């Protein structure tokens, strides 16, 4: 049964993609429904699978040997991922309704865009699902790569200048990331002679250069997870991508990197070497830096989706810091990881809802304002840890840290939560500023509402191990909730202060511009060198050609000696006879 479900959950998206292709060629464009019910159902088998219980599969014929598993970690992960994908798909049906109408009316460009999206959406999903259940490197890498590259279409969907820039940034960093991951995997797997993620984990733990392997993997996967420095694609890609795509990008796919870390880094293992612990420190610092830096930079953004992207970076920074704890303080990890999963799941759905919310604020339904704006803010508030699942999540990471006496980190995380709150506040404010009336589709807001509910109720449906999460005790509520008002206040005050100072919003994508500048600066001398080499090559080719020509010109003159020889054949015979005789005599007389 589980195997059937597994096969279904992998094949179903493929089948959906196939159907999309089929209908492109068979259904007349006027009746083509890109987001049909079938298309919506792409993620459903996976969702079912997550709730099917734990299971294990070994398929020898699959690539380098397939090892798939649904375990305590991958089940909840699959659950929230599949859920978010389903919700986002529902949202997409509404979101793309206008475009679809255009397409059905015969707009070629819209047809093309929708077809592309409809085709690659299930493939991205497939990659995402595969990487979650994969326990062997090849499958994981396959899923990761499939997801990464298929998602390009989601980012570039609208085809505008910004979308293309975002997609470009996304793709370049993805390629860099793939390279780093491959390097890390090769290194670790080569040293440990293994083909599974488990083996990689153990290999990193025991290998001499384990820290370096771990660094490669951390950075490679960190591209997706938005480690500081490699995060630049997020604020560029998200504003440009359609809202449902942003939702899955920021909710589900960004978590793939996190899952990768958890799968390959020897978190919480006995006997972590000093260098690995050092890496942990670096990760910790990087995570916290991302958490604060992104918040600081993000609040100045104008585009709500850019702000949300920065919020994602910030949140992922926190998660990075938490994962780092698995290396820095291995003992805490067994207690910590359910909290991390919960945090991730909650962030996924909350961020998904927030992104979906941006599309709602652009097409506000005719509901009472008092209803809409709280709803729009609700996932954000939860994200800041003030209510619902956010609070539970925050507590479930805090309490193990308390137990192990990492109060300073807790403090820092709380301060980071202030940043989150500030970002959410700014985001909602920007949405308010840029709101548009009308045109909202029931699918659109239905999915959004579902997302909010699911986000707020995350601990209830997430198949985590029993008793791994609990509501925070009342006395801790204040300690968890204070960042929200603090953040909001800071933002309000800051905003009020800055109103009189003419601050230009820094461009989204912060370091991207630096990278681009550096790269083009580096490329200038490279081009010069290349041109120089080309010139040298051309010159040498020319010289050798000339030499050849000269030689060829000389050759006929040389060959004129043939006539001389022809003419003097008898004389030459005489010479030869004399020569031979002389030689022979000389040799004989010696």
């Amino acid at each position, binding site marked *: 049964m589980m195997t059937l479900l597994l096969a279904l959950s992998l094949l179903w998206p493929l089948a959906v993609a196939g159907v999309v292709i089929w209908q492109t060629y068979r259904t007349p464009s006027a009746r083509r429904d890109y987001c049909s019910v079938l298309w919506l159902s792409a993620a459903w088998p996976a969702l079912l699978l997550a709730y099917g219980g734990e299971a294990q599969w070994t398929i020898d014929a699959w690539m380098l040997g397939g090892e798939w598993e649904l375990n305590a970690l991958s089940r909840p992960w699959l659950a929230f991922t599949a859920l978010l994908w389903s919700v986002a798909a529902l949202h997409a049906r509404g979101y793309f309704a206008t475009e679809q109408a255009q397409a059905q009316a015969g707009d070629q460009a819209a047809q093309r865009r929708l077809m592309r999206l409809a085709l690659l959406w299930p493939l991205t999903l497939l990659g995402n699902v595969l990487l979650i259940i994969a326990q062997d490197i090849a499958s994981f890498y396959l899923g990761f790569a499939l997801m990464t590259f298929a998602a390009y279409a989601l980012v570039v969907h609208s085809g505008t200048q910004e979308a293309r820039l975002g997609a470009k940034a996304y793709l370049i960093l993805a390629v860099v990331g793939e390279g780093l991951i491959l390097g890390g995997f090769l290194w670790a797997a080569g040293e440990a002679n293994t083909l599974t993620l488990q083996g990689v984990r153990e290999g990193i733990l025991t290998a001499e250069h384990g820290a370096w392997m771990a660094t490669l993997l951390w950075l490679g996967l960190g591209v997706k997870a938005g480690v500081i420095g490699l995060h630049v694609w997020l604020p560029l890609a998200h504003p440009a991508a359609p809202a449902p795509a942003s939702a899955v990008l920021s909710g589900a796919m960004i978590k793939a990197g996190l899952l990768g870390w958890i799968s390959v880094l020897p978190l919480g293992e006995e006997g972590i070497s000093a260098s690995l612990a050092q890496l942990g420190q670096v990760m910790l610092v990087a995570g916290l830096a991302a958490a604060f830096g992104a918040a600081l930079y993000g609040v100045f953004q104008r585009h709500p989706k850019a702000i949300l992207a920065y919020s994602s970076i910030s949140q992922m920074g926190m998660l990075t810091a938490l994962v780092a704890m698995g290396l820095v303080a291995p003992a805490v990890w067994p207690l910590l990881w359910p909290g991390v999963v919960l945090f991730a799941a909650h962030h996924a759905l909350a961020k998904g809802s927030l992104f979906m919310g941006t599309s709602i604020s652009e097409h506000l339904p005719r509901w009472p304002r008092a209803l809409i704006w709280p709803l729009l803010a609700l996932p954000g508030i939860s994200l800041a840890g003030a209510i619902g699942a956010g609070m539970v999540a925050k507590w479930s990471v805090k309490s193990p840290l308390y137990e192990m006496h990492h109060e300073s980190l807790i403090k820092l995380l709380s301060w980071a939560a202030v940043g989150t709150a500030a970002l959410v506040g700014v985001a909602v404010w920007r949405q308010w500023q840029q709101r548009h009336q009308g045109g909202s589709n029931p699918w659109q807001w239905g999915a959004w509402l579902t997302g909010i509910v699911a986000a707020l109720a995350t601990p209830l449906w997430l198949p985590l191990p029993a008793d791994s999460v609990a509501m925070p005790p009342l006395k801790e509520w204040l300690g968890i909730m204070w960042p929200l008002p603090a953040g909001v206040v800071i933002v309000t005050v800051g905003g009020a202060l800055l109103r009189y100072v003419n601050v230009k919003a820094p461009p989204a994508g912060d370091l991207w511009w630096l990278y681009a500048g550096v790269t083009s600066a580096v490329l200038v001398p490279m081009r010069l060198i290349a041109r120089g080499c080309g010139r040298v090559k051309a010159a040498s080719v020319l010289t050798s050609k000339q030499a050849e020509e000269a030689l060829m010109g000389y050759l006929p003159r040389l060959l*004129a000696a043939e*006539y001389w020889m*022809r*003419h*003097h054949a*008898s*004389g030459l015979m*005489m*010479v030869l*006879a*004399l020569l031979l*005789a002389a030689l022979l005599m000389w040799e004989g007389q010696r």
Partner: protein
Amino acid sequence: MIASFDALEILLALGLTVTALACLFDRHLVRACCFFVAFALAMTLAWWQLGAPWLAAVELLLGAVLTGLCFFYALGRFFPGVSSSLERDSFNEPWSRSFARLLLALAWFVMVGAAIRYVITDMVYSPDEQPLLLAGVMITASALGAFALHRHLLRRLLAFNILGSGVFMLLAGVAGTSASAQALITVGLCIAWLGSMLGALLIRQLLHLEGVDALGRDGNPKENAT
């Protein structure tokens, strides 16, 4: 008796050498051909002298009569009017060429002479007692030199014939007139005649077709183009 023989041989040898050289180096072709006939007749005598009457007969028939006829045919003396007859060799060789040929001929002379000297060490005669042999060496070397020098076809053909006779003379000189030697010489004479005939025909034909009378510098486009 011996002395008279010697005298006769010396005379014969001298006659042979002189006629050969005259034949080789006379630019006037008719005269050269006449000298050749004279040379052939002297050869006949020489064969007779060496005690090879069979060879003498063959030489007389093939060498003097038939080959001579061939040459005069080649000169255009039999069927005048068909094409111009040959009179003189008008080629002028650069002196370096002549000099090189002279050196080569001398060297050959030395080489062949040395070889003969070695061959007949166990014989009682010394070379100067073998004037015919000496003449043979002389004729061979100079004929070869002349062959390499000349460009006029007829003169080369003449040189070849003289060369052949010289070689036969040497052969007879060193090997005596044994059956093998006689056979070799007879074959050689036949071949020489056949060759001369073919050559004469060719010369006529070439003259008739194109007016070519020499193997000129083949750098000229005439032969090059085809």
